[in-house]
């Protein structure tokens, strides 16, 4: 059914950012309408309960200390959580060797480990000099932004193994090849998460906690009070704007509102047609934004057999499709689940393989990591985020080298009545669920100020 609707504010995207924005506005007495292209809320979180009750987390899943907004929402919604399993030794597969270690830094090779600590200290101390709200203001922004992370890695006096591990880290964290992003972007991202150490570990780090029912329940909880103000299957195709109004065209009709918050990744925001067109710098920015490349696989076994060998399930490897794994088992269930990430160029390669070939390659990787028992799973689930029409990648959108320093200012700056949200616009925990929530709340606050400044009455007031 096609219909014309009115609202004070229309929000594009029912992920955590859009729903957080909408809820904040609703709480402030503003009438909102959320338009979502998919047939579900949650964006890049997607938790599916399979027939046997096992929850598969196809998208974002981890929470950690200092992620106060998402932790607050978990508490507010009364969602149960559990600690990421991390007992036992991690494994590093490097140069054909299989080294055990504990913590975030592989210690099997002491010289390599010391190099990695050097790298972590150097990157963290440098990132602390970046203002995450204005990375382009750094005195060396132009230099840092014209240097790729790969150039930086190659120039360091580290062992080859250490350099390789930092490359693997880049693929896992961003997820992008270190040659695809600038050093400025990497430093900005590390800064927004509080430093490298905070981002790569489990305990006391970003991978510490999971939500028992699945992370998508955060969005279900946010959407509940919004009721039918959330419209699914409504991809937005065009936004017309005037000084004080927007008309948003979508598959369900049109919506006229005072303001719009576009809460989708910049590269997808750039695919909407705007009338009048976006200012050149904004469009140049979205042209230079790209999504990370990742496939996420869950491999289910009758039991977490790797724990018998004193292994945590966390592996970093320098070969194979799957180069990062974690123990994904739920503490209340008997199955053992390994989650693997196929990142960056490996993700692009894997997305072009047939499902059976990909599955065979994944199992081959897991056998190399955990032994022959890994060859016989009882379940296999995968998601290629690259192929998701309404994300076109995960976990986060990034900037190509040279973009932050020249066009970064256009990332958050409203264009007339159109405001921007999404984890890509977050200053703190950019790329994470926490950042998405913060960005939505910040955009809602900015819209409220904007409406008040222009003396615009809301639907409720009328």
């Amino acid at each position, binding site marked *: 059914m096609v219909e014309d609707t009115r609202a004070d504010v229309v929000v594009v995207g029912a992920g955590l950012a859009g729903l957080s924005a909408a809820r904040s506005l609703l709480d402030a007495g503003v009438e909102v309408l959320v338009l979502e292209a998919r047939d579900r809320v949650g964006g890049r979180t997607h938790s599916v309960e399979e027939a046997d009750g096992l929850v598969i987390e196809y998208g974002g899943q981890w929470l950690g200390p200092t992620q106060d907004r998402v932790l607050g929402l978990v508490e507010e919604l009364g969602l149960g959580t559990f600690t990421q399993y991390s*007992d036992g030794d991690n494994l590093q597969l490097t140069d054909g060797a299989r080294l055990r*270690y*504990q*913590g975030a830094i592989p*210690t099997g090779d*002491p010289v390599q480990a010391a190099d990695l600590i050097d790298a972590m*200290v*150097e990157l963290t101390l440098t990132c*602390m000099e970046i203002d995450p709200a204005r990375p382009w203001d750094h005195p060396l922004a132009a230099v840092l932004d014209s240097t790729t992370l790969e150039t930086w890695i190659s120039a360091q006096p580290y062992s080859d193994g250490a350099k390789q591990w930092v490359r693997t880290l880049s693929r896992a964290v961003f997820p992008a090849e270190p040659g695809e992003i600038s050093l400025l972007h990497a430093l900005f991202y590390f800064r927004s998460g509080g430093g490298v*150490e905070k981002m790569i570990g489990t305990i006391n780090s970003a991978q510490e906690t999971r939500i028992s029912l699945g992370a998508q329940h955060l969005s279900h909880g946010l959407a509940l009070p919004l009721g039918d103000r959330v419209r699914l299957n409504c991809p937005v195709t065009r936004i017309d704007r005037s000084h004080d109004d927007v008309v948003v065209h979508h598959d369900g009709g049109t919506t006229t509102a005072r303001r719009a918050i576009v809460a989708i990744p910049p590269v997808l925001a750039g695919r909407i047609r705007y009338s009048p067109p976006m200012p050149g710098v904004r469009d140049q920015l979205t042209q230079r934004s790209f999504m990370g490349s990742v496939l996420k696989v869950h491999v289910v076994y009758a039991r977490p057999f790797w724990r018998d060998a004193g292994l945590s399930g966390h592996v970093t490897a320098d070969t194979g499709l799957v180069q990062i794994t974690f123990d994904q088992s739920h503490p209340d269930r008997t199955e053992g689940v390994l989650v693997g990430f196929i990142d960056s160029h490996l993700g692009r390669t894997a997305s072009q393989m047939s499902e059976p070939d990909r599955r065979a390659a994944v199992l081959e990787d897991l056998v190399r990591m955990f032994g022959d028992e890994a060859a016989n799973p009882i379940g296999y689930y995968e998601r290629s985020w690259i192929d998701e029409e309404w994300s076109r990648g995960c976990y986060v959108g990034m900037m190509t080298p040279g973009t932050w320093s020249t066009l970064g200012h256009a990332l958050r700056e409203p264009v007339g009545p159109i405001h921007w949200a999404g984890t890509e616009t977050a200053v703190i925990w950019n790329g994470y669920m926490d950042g998405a929530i913060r960005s939505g709340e910040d955009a809602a606050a900015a819209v409220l100020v904007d409406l008040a400044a222009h003396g615009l009455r809301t639907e409720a007031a009328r």
Partner: protein
Amino acid sequence: MSVERETIGAAELEEALREYVDKANASPRARKTLATWSCRLHIAATDVEDAAFTYVVEQGASQPLVVGLEGVPDLVVRGHSFDLAEIFWGDANPVSNYMQGAIKTQGRADDVMRLDAMAMFIFLGQ
């Protein structure tokens, strides 16, 4: 996870920490990587009443240990005496998941990271 650990007396903990200070000054990696680091640390065992120390790093050089808590700390480190001793002796990985949960720090994230780095260099014999 509950772990039974023996209590380490204040004197032994002091000895371990003095050895740690010597190792920090002898570590070429720590001296190079942390050359610009200055920090006043208060270190206290949660299970031994009089086991509290002031450890000062000036431009990467560890100063002689002071028994008791002196001055305003940049970083406070607390933990069970056994866990602290394991780290000071260089016997335990200071950034293992267990230690990350067992040792509590209060202060700026970059100071915590530098302390972790120093402890790791000592643990690795680098």
